[in-house]
């Protein structure tokens, strides 16, 4: 499978019409268009570069989806496993609530709101960007070199390679908890607040994605340090499932102002629940998610560029 993958990707952008036509509907059409646009598209500004990246991402992801479907039993088990892995997180919280009525002053539906928001965002991030944590391993085994010579942005390749559709399981499970929480909770809905929910999910995805990219960039320097990245992404996700009131104030300040994970769910959820922010942030901060998501991408992408520039192949 590993040998078949890169060869497939290598062929498609090279305008091999025969293989593209034979490769199945969605990806076939995509690669055809990619090949036609490319001569004009090179070096035509950042916008077309981004489109280039997206197109490359789509092609690679489609290829991995087809590859995954070769082992259907395994895929079905993985999908169920993914739903269960986050599901059991929530079961643990539920079991806590068999013993207590409130945790840190929050009821079970309120915690379910926190949980649903951050799990959905994190699930989307994991689906779209989760494979960036392999970067250290790629540096070690030299497979990054192959990516550098392909006509697709490296980040798109790193993120899309081994694209795992099974990670949809986490998204579905997070959404289920979110929907349950919203149906049980008594929120004073306004149009703005309704809009806040999907906006928060997307902003949360952007924030987590930025952390993933920064973590991957860090691995250019540190080598095989996927776990450091995991401690901010998975660790952050675990932390955000619980109410901010139970954590130390210094930790809250750090995840609000330094690494703004608090905007993934805490700040908007507290606003929806009509609870005061423990750090005294004003109400409009709840709507600042997209801005924060945009802001964190600046240092993350700078770090990524610096990482790619500083990259020296293992050379052997």
């Amino acid at each position, binding site marked *: 499978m590993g040998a078949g993958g890169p060869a497939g990707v290598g062929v498609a952008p090279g305008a091999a019409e025969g293989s593209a036509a034979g490769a199945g509907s969605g990806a076939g059409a995509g690669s055809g268009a990619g090949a036609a646009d490319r001569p004009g598209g090179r070096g035509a500004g950042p916008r077309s570069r981004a489109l280039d990246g997206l197109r490359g991402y789509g092609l690679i992801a489609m290829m991995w989806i087809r590859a995954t479907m070769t082992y259907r039993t*395994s895929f079905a088990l993985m999908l169920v496993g993914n739903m269960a892995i986050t599901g059991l997180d929530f079961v643990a919280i539920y079991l806590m609530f068999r013993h207590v009525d409130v945790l*840190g002053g929050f009821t079970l539906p309120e915690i379910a709101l926190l949980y649903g928001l951050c799990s959905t965002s994190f699930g989307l991030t994991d689906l779209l960007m989760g494979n960036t944590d392999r970067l250290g391993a790629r540096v070690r085994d030299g497979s990054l070199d192959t990516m550098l010579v392909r006509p697709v942005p490296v980040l798109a390749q790193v993120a899309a390679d081994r694209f795992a559709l099974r990670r949809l399981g986490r998204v579905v499970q997070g959404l289920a908890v979110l929907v349950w929480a919203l149906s049980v909770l008594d929120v004073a809905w306004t149009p703005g607040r309704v809009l806040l929910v999907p906006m928060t999910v997307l902003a949360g995805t952007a924030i987590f994605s930025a952390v993933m990219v920064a973590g991957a960039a860090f691995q250019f320097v540190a080598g095989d*340090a996927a*776990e450091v990245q*995991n*401690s901010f992404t998975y660790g952050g996700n675990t932390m955000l499932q619980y109410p901010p009131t*139970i954590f130390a104030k210094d930790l809250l300040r750090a995840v609000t102002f330094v690494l703004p994970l608090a905007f993934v769910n805490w700040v908007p959820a507290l606003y929806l629940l009509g609870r005061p922010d423990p750090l005294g942030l004003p109400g409009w901060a709840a709507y600042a998610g997209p801005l924060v998501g945009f802001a964190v991408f600046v240092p993350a992408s700078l770090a990524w560029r610096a990482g790619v520039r500083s990259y020296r192949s293992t050379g052997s």
Partner: protein
Amino acid sequence: MRLHVPLWCAVAAGGFRRYATYTTATAAGVFTNTVFGFVIAYTYIALWEERPGLGGYDQAQALTFVWVSQALLATSGLMGGGFHEELQQRVRTGDIAVDLYRPADLQLWWLFTDLGRAAFQLLGRGVVPLAVGALAFELALPGDPVRWLLFLLSVLLGAVVSFAIRYLLGLAAFWLLDGSGVNLIATVVAIFFSGMLLPLSVFPGAFGEFVRLLPWAAMLQVPLDVLMGTQGAGGAGLVRALGFQLAWALTLLGLGRLAQSAATRKVVVQGG
């Protein structure tokens, strides 16, 4: 199946050295365990403030549970990262054929490799998170060296149980070829039923009774109870705890042996 002590010592030492090579990965793992330790510690403080004495633990014992379980996470192979992915890969690629005609027993070979890994990770990934936890929070760690020795014995038995389960997973590749699905399910089950998410003593009612009888309890819950002396009254409780682990270890190793003989009958080496 003769027991050839120097050989198995060498195999275990190889496992130890292999993992000791990746210092950055080890440091990164220590960092992760420490971060998770803090996050979970705060949630347990909130939980035990709401319900003091929950599951028979006071707050210091609950926090001990958090930090020791982070310290044992890598050793007990709860999150994968052990040998079974490699064994599955060898089955898929056919390298297993070479392994099978080696003059060393397959199960014992992997057992000692994995114990070498576990020993390294106990030192490399266990000591620092526990020390950080002990500095940052008030833990209920015993001062009695005998208790620590019993704890290490219990950790060893837990590591064997963990190995035996993952060996079955590895052999599953003979039937499934791609083991990633079962691996994921196994990780989920192990994390939940070992007490990693919540101590098993906190699980309510008959469900709690049931989960404390499953083999995953031997990996984390039992070693922790042995360490904190919460395994039941006196010597009898201790014997029961260690006996429980030993019984599961032998049962699962036996199952592994059965599966191994079934699998080797299935192997067809494609010559050429």
